[in-house]
């Protein structure tokens, strides 16, 4: 019997876990200055991330979702995107956000529970963080449809996690992307865990990439801890999307080295051994090893980088802590373009009770 349809999933890697080259580099990666620039970004991400956790632990930030271990995906994607592309994201994309021009102050505001943190001074067209897992997949299809309708050469990136690939919205969004051949790239960050649910308990699919077969769109796997591979595969998919050649899905294999959030304790459900093993494949050191091997990086430069990152983060912390709290009345601002008169009595009631409401409820 002849099959009526046939599909294959490919996997891309350029730098292995020790920083050895496994296949000839694409053009951009032959420019060492570019690599160093991306390496610096990864360093900034990790410094920022550690500070955010520290702020949370000392009561200066709310629940926070770390990006530890996912820096290669984020630097690869962040650098492959153009500023007029549109990014739709989860709560674990702060590295991409930084590269797209969201300020660290805005990130801290957001994670402190302040809506002003989503009024990005940088990427005005990027969607706000989507907390309801998977919903952004259909928003992404809509944004991409608008871009296509207007014959613009822009692309949309929709980032989601491995857990999110179980949600109906994800499939519905992919199916839309396929049906209308939209300029939309799905980035599945497979960090092996959805809170306590391991990748293997999420689905019987051998790869997450193959989920796009259901929508008839091209799909592939990439080593998500390999900066070069992510950047290259993403770049190709985005170029096609901008040129009207349709959507794609990229599964980036990585590992969530941190707890799910600062409210989580991952040691309840996964072994220290597994985490230690995953550390061997973490994304930053392999670039450092590669650059060091080239003679393009050394301890002095590393120390200077760290110092610079720390200073930048510290400045942002100061800007953040110096920001006055929002006024209670802010909850009636931007609800509608103009507050309907029917809601004015409620705003008045809030004003009247503003102070009275100032006590914490849960004690």
């Amino acid at each position, binding site marked *: 019997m002849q099959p009526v349809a046939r599909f294959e999933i490919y996997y891309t890697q350029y730098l292995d876990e020790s920083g050895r080259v496994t296949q000839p580099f694409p053009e951009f990666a032959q420019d060492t200055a570019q690599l160093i620039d991306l390496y610096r970004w990864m360093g900034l991400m990790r410094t920022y991330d550690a500070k955010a956790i520290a702020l949370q632990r000392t009561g200066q930030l709310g629940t926070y979702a770390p990006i530890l271990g996912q820096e290669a995906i984020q630097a690869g994607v962040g650098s492959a995107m153009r500023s007029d592309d549109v990014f739709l994201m989860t709560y674990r994309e702060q590295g991409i956000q930084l590269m797209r021009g969201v300020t660290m102050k805005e990130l801290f505001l957001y994670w402190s529970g302040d*809506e002003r943190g989503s009024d990005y001074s940088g990427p005005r067209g990027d969607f706000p963080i989507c907390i309801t897992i998977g*919903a952004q*997949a*259909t928003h992404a299809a*809509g*944004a991409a449809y*608008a871009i296509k309708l207007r014959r613009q050469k822009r692309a949309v990136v929709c980032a989601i996690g491995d857990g999110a690939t179980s949600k109906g*919205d994800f499939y519905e969004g992919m*199916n839309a992307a396929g049906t209308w051949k939209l300029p939309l790239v799905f980035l599945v960050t497979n960090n092996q865990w959805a809170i306590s649910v391991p990748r293997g308990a999420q689905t019987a699919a051998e790869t997450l990439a193959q989920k796009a077969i259901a929508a008839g769109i091209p799909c592939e796997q990439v080593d998500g801890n390999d900066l070069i591979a992510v950047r290259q595969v993403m770049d190709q998919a985005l170029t096609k999307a901008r040129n009207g050649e349709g959507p794609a899905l990229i599964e980036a294999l990585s590992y969530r080295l941190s707890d799910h959030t600062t409210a989580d304790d991952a040691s309840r459900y996964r072994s220290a051994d597994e985490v230690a093993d995953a550390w061997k494949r973490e994304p930053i050191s392999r670039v450092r090893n590669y650059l060091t091997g080239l003679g393009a990086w050394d301890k002095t430069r590393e120390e200077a980088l760290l110092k610079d990152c720390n200073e930048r983060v510290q400045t942002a912390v100061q800007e953040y802590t110096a920001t006055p709290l929002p006024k209670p009345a802010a909850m009636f601002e931007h*609800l509608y373009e103009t507050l309907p008169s029917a809601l004015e009595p409620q705003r008045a009631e809030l004003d009247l009770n503003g102070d009275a409401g100032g006590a914490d409820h849960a004690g």
Partner: protein
Amino acid sequence: MAQITLVEAINRALATEMERDSDVVIMGQDVGKDGGVFRATVGLTDRFGPERVMDTPLAEAMIAGMAIGMAVEGLKPVAEIQFSGFAYTTIDQILNHAGRMRYRTRGRMSCPLVLRTPCGAGIHAPEHHSESPEAMFAHMPGIRVVYPSSPRRAYGLLLASIRDPDPVVFCEPTRLYRLFREEVEDDATALPLDTCFTLREGTDVTLVTWGGMVHETLGAADALAELGYAAEVIDVATLKPYDLDTILASVGRTGRCVVVSEAPRTAGFASEIAASVSEQGLLSLMAPVQRVTGYDTVVPLARLEKYYIPSVERIVAGARRAIEFS
């Protein structure tokens, strides 16, 4: 001026606004070549092409979610959900996203979409085709809920909804789609979204209703007139945020109030109006506000649905309870 039905008025409003504003895009199941299962979008594909009149795959959350993405990117999507019984899967998108895009980005983004959906029972349709979900939508912050009850109001309110800079859930009374005709001037004039419409003035009792039930309520006002009672009939039309002032002013004059709705009683929108009128109109009320509503049960299939929808007689009985209360 043409005498047209409510569904034709919707079709005109869509065509007129698509003509005026190239950002307006229609989307939904069977809205293209087929012209919609109720024919609301008939002729639009021919006129505006399939890119602006999108036949979508069968996925309501996708329709709502895409509309959100399109609206944020600057289009003005008008999405059709074929029946409101299939709109429950859009609630997550409308509540968690459409109603919050502006709020959560502090005005950086907005979400000017319209979600049109046929509502109400009485057309002998299969299960899930007779729903009245308006209270659920009206409970959601950041959106508007509009529910016209005549061709003229359907035309003007749909134009207003499309032009509104925020998300609107636009309920359409299936029972009234073709029940009667009205002269509608197709002059692109919108009607206001922040006001009730007083359809009939009266001094003895205020009958408050919306959507499909406006028809039976006007019938009840006729029947009450024969009994010697002058009923004022108010069509709420925009349920969220709604114009309580007009209702209170009327109750101030009549001292009696009946709220009529075909949705299940518990936590329905009739309860909202009854609560507000009771709270703010207590001093003028000479009788408790009466709710005449659908029962707290599943809308029966065709054979029994007529016993479920409030009848003229039940509305009259409710009004008499209010009028004759002492």
